């Protein structure tokens, strides 16, 4: 049984090769032109500014204790947010894609809502809900529980902002896969969890992984919402994006762009890791396919 990945690749090779070469070249060049002006240029600017005063200063800026504290906080936030949203994404995609029920359109729209909510509002709502002006917030304050202007507040705001990524990735995928395979497994006597592990998970793993990567990328890069709920206390509640902004307003451009470049590296690193993993599993796939 050929894996979906290789099937997909076969499709691509067939369809892509059908297009005339001049068209291909033209479209590829246009794509490069778009990327050059909208992605390469900003990235090149980040690195040229970061390295503008030499490697030594670059490395010093990254190793500075406040930068490291910010990086730790950012990674901690991502480490909490990504698994939580992944579990939710799978549950939501399962409910939405395998069953039909009333109000599905409403539910799906609500799932997408955080994409459409301004980051400013995303921060504002948690301040309105948990800030000390509210009864709940002042109750928390009296019991020494800090949420807003502390790590949990940053985590919650990030959860909100990255909420739809996994679900959004999985719903169309699982809908297009239909439910025959799972139904067959259940008919053959598989228990729910078994069915999920043996049939569903292998089918959705790329979508899931991809959704998690997007979720991770967005959670390390989120600025607006986090900026509202962080107290901007150096070394305590500054995430990397906030630290970048602070350095920038201190006229410390080199350090600011150096720290920003860490974010670029993190993003590229996760994406390259995904590509490598994909490649490896693809190579191992035929053997596994024979076993089943």
């Amino acid at each position, binding site marked *: 049984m050929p894996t979906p990945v290789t099937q997909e690749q076969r499709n691509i090779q067939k369809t892509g090769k059908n*297009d005339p070469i001049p068209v291909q070249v033209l479209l590829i060049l246009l794509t490069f032109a778009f990327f050059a002006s909208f992605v390469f240029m900003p990235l090149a600017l980040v690195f040229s500014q970061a390295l503008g005063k030499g490697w030594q200063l670059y490395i010093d800026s990254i190793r500075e204790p406040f930068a490291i504290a910010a990086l730790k906080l950012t990674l901690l936030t991502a480490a909490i947010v990504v698994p939580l949203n992944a579990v939710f994404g799978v*549950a939501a995609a399962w409910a939405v894609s395998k*069953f039909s029920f009333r109000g599905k359109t409403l539910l799906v729209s609500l799932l997408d*809502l955080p994409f459409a909510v301004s980051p400013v*509002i995303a921060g*504002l709502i948690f301040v309105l809900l948990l800030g000390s002006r509210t009864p709940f917030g002042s109750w928390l304050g009296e019991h020494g529980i800090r949420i807003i202007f502390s790590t949990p507040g940053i985590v919650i705001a990030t959860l909100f902002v990255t909420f739809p990524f996994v679900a959004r990735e999985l719903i169309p995928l699982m809908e297009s896969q239909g*439910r025959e395979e799972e139904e067959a497994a259940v008919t053959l006597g598989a228990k729910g969890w078994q069915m999920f592990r043996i049939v569903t998970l292998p089918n959705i793993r790329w979508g899931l992984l991809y959704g998690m990567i997007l979720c991770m990328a967005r959670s390390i890069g989120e600025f607006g919402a986090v900026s509202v709920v962080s107290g901007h206390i150096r070394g305590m509640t500054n995430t990397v994006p906030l630290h970048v902004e602070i350095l920038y307003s201190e006229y410390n451009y080199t350090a600011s762009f150096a720290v*920003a470049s860490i*974010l670029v590296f993190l993003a590229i690193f996760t994406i390259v890791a995904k590509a490598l993993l994909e490649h490896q599993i693809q190579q191992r796939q035929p053997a596994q396919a024979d076993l089943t």
Partner: protein
Amino acid sequence: MPPFSTNRKHILPGFGLSMGYTVFYLSAIVIVPLATIVIGTFRMDPQAFIGTVTAPRVLASCRLSLTTALLAALCDSVFGFLAAWTLVRYRFPGRKILDALVDIPFALPTAVAGICFATLYSPVGWIGQLLAAKGIQLINTPTGIVIALIFIGFPFVVRTLQPVLSELEPEIEESARSLGATRWQTFRRVLFPHLFPSLLTGATLSFARGIGEYGSVIFIAGNLPYKTEIAPLMIMSKLDQFDYDGASAVAFMLLIASFTMLLMLNAVQRWQEKASH
């Protein structure tokens, strides 16, 4: 297309659990917090609410946010479609790198993106210099806002189109061709209609995101009242005057706009799916 039939008995397990969890988590993270805005708005004196949201400056900022986001979404549809098409169908050196870089706008903090674009397009920047020689200045104009929003929104279009493009059966195209359709006809009559719902989804998401974007825009916008002041900045400036009600009122209007759009989009999609069966 998924075989949805409402009268078949569900034998798949886990509906209660997954649905329950979805609703619980959705309520805790999204609905309850957003309800604070709605409640805050309803507690306002209706006159004060109407006064706030119909103030000419607020209306001007909403108009600006909507038009720039719409323009950016249109540009994103074109560029995003192009990028998704080449990335999926063609093999060329650097393809994987480009594919990876599509997510950069998600990962790069919006403030950094804003600073970068403002620096690039400033009269002394790499691109701004060339434009300044021709007497064009994009920074501090609505065009500058559109540029920042194109950057913010284009991954949505690319990433919604890519899976659909890569799952296209080559047979569809082949059969269209064997029936005598030209390449362009095949694209226009067969491929594009198939891709259109995803394109629409991606464009709507990028539109919705653009309306609310703050971090990347304020650096390049100029923020002049009635000219280049965006709606999220109105919220911020109301907050900075400790006017929580006013901020909630403007936020409420933006929320309604975004949500209506998503609801319409999803309804259209469901309807299309049903029609195709």
